[in-house]
């Protein structure tokens, strides 16, 4: 029983950064912007979070720093694509490339340093209840943030007027503009939210998942988060489901390696990436589903003419 609980716990820990980054990107894409810089924002959040935590000794300050760094980094993308109407695919790519380089440079002195870890929730008496106690009341704080964030985004997008406006911008920025909606302002806020989320996801990596700094430690998770949004056909609860499936694949291959299954470890390590491809193929085969849900103006630059 304990093993099952522990595996479930590690799956949750692996799924949390994917979930947070994907939920952030979902809001961005719902507003009609495609930000391929998730990987870059995530790794910047990871290095910023680790650095702030390491220098101050407080993992909470680290987490806050991760969010701020992610948001600031995404601002760069926002200025380029929204104010200067650059190609979103190319700009997102350059954000990732810059993030990977910059984080490597900033993190040189952090390599091998002991990090600080966010403590797990511990409510006396309750967290020690078998199974439920640990699973529901004994996880790391970011886990709870990720669930709350998913619920909040669901409510925001589908139950509030602002959420409706955001989705309408994503479907037709020209119509939204004609209605007097400030398209660019909404998109700025959406992109910054996405950046903050990706930063938080990175902070989770370097402050909870493996509390240390390793170069390229995001290991493609930002790209998997992007795939999750497509997989979820832009629905928050499906992102949640997808993130946990991928968390399970990620943990499953690690356990398989530890148990010494007679398959080369490299093949097991490539499973999450292969799974992403398979899942993308399965979902995009259904053309009606993807056509119906894809924000119609996704990735198109918008220049208001006045």
């Amino acid at each position, binding site marked *: 029983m304990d093993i099952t609980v522990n595996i479930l716990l590690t799956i949750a820990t692996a799924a949390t950064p994917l979930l947070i980054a994907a939920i952030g990107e979902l809001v961005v894409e719902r507003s009609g912007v495609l930000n*391929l810089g998730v990987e870059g924002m995530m790794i910047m959040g990871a290095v910023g979070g680790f650095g702030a935590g390491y220098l101050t000794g407080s993992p909470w300050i680290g987490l806050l720093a991760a969010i701020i760094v992610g948001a600031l980094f995404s601002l*760069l993308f926002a*200025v*380029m694509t929204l*104010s*200067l*109407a*650059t*190609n979103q*695919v*190319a*700009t997102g*790519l*350059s*954000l990732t*490339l*810059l*993030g*990977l*380089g*910059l984080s*490597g*440079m900033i993190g*040189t002195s952090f390599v091998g340093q002991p990090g600080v870890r966010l403590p797990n929730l511990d409510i006396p008496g309750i967290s020690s209840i078998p199974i439920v106690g640990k699973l529901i009341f004994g996880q790391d704080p970011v886990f709870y943030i990720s669930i709350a964030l998913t619920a909040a985004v669901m409510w925001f997008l589908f139950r509030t007027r602002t959420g409706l406006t955001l989705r309408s911008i994503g479907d037709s920025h020209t119509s939204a503009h004609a*209605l*007097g909606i400030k398209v660019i302002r909404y998109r700025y806020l959406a992109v910054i939210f996405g950046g903050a989320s990706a930063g938080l996801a990175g902070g989770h990596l370097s402050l909870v998942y493996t509390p240390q700094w390793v170069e390229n430690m995001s*290991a*493609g998770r930002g*790209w998997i988060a*992007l*795939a999750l949004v*497509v997989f979820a056909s832009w629905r928050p609860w499906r992102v949640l489901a997808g993130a946990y499936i991928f968390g399970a694949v990620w943990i499953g291959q690690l356990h398989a390696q530890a148990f010494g299954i007679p398959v*080369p470890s*490299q*093949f097991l*390590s*490539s499973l999450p*990436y*292969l799974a*992403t*491809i398979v899942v*993308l*193929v399965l979902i*995009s*085969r259904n*053309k009606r589903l*993807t056509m119906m849900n894809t924000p119609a103006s996704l990735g198109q630059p918008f*220049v208001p*003419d*006045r």
Partner: protein
Amino acid sequence: MRIELVKRPQRSALFSMLSPFIAFALTIIAGAIMFALLGVNPLNAFEIYFVEPISQVWQLHELAIKAAPLILIAVGLSVCYKANIWNIGAEGQFIFGAIFGSIIPVLFPQFEGPLVIPLMLLLGMVGGAFYASIPALLKTRFSTNEILTSLMLVYVAQLFLDWLVRGPWRDPQGHGFPQTIQFGDSAVLPELMPDAGRANWGFVFALVAAVAIWLMMSRMLKGFEVRVLGSSPRAGRFAGFGFNKMVFFAFLLSGALAGLAGISEVSGAIGQLQPVISPGYGFTAIIVAFLGRLNPLGIVAAGLVLALTYLGGEAVQSALGISDKVARVFQGMLLFFVLGCDTLIHYRIRLIGMALTKPKGAALEAAPKLGEAR
């Protein structure tokens, strides 16, 4: 303060020419600030970064070695991007080209002679094209997003190469090092001028590919097809150009060139397969493609510039103790500024202060009010 873009009546030829240079100048300024923040005299750092690595003939050869894969890959990618097809997995195609091409020297080392190199190069191109055909197939058959699939395949390729050189292809006499046997003499790409430096035929391939693709894009129907489908798929369909065929063409071409770059690098500069054979050439080539304005001849120049950022990164690491990641930062900044400056080609940029947004003419005043009525 707000930025407002005003569409130009037609694209500006002046800024089309100038934008890469403005971008480079901005990168230098940003780089100076960065070096100053790191506590290094920027002028001194720039001399070490940009001048010293190319001040001697043998160093120019090193520049050519680094530029060759960048140009080869970027030329192929430029065709993809012109057609609005986003192959960002060139790094994986590079690796698979290297693996396929290495089949002969690793598995059949006794096979020697003048045929070895051409066969290896051919196999390398086949390997790269094969690996690029996967995202192309998935895109055309299942309309799966090629950006994500081609990128995911990079991780898979890196792990596959890692397994090969640690497992079945490991040199039994290699003291356990994860690497294949050293390629035999007839499997090594010859150097161009052995007396002057290490540059090999890879650089010639790059130049030939650039000229060939330039001819195709500017003088042949295929190039026209690429451009039409890229700028307006609908118009392309009316003209009878098939989009799916174009996806395959662009992926196979860019994959083959990336594969050629891979086998040239392994056969020329490295001489054996190792767990890591590329310092991110496949990704840096994306920057090269855009810095070269997706024009094959521009890409040659851009490839040399980006190759210099690699050499400069190594130079400042050894001279000033700064991480060689500084090269990646320079490359990322350069791409940012290039994309930003490209806006100038199509738009005039107006900076508008918050207080100054009110139009001056009385006649103009009515119009924005109408627009603002909700």
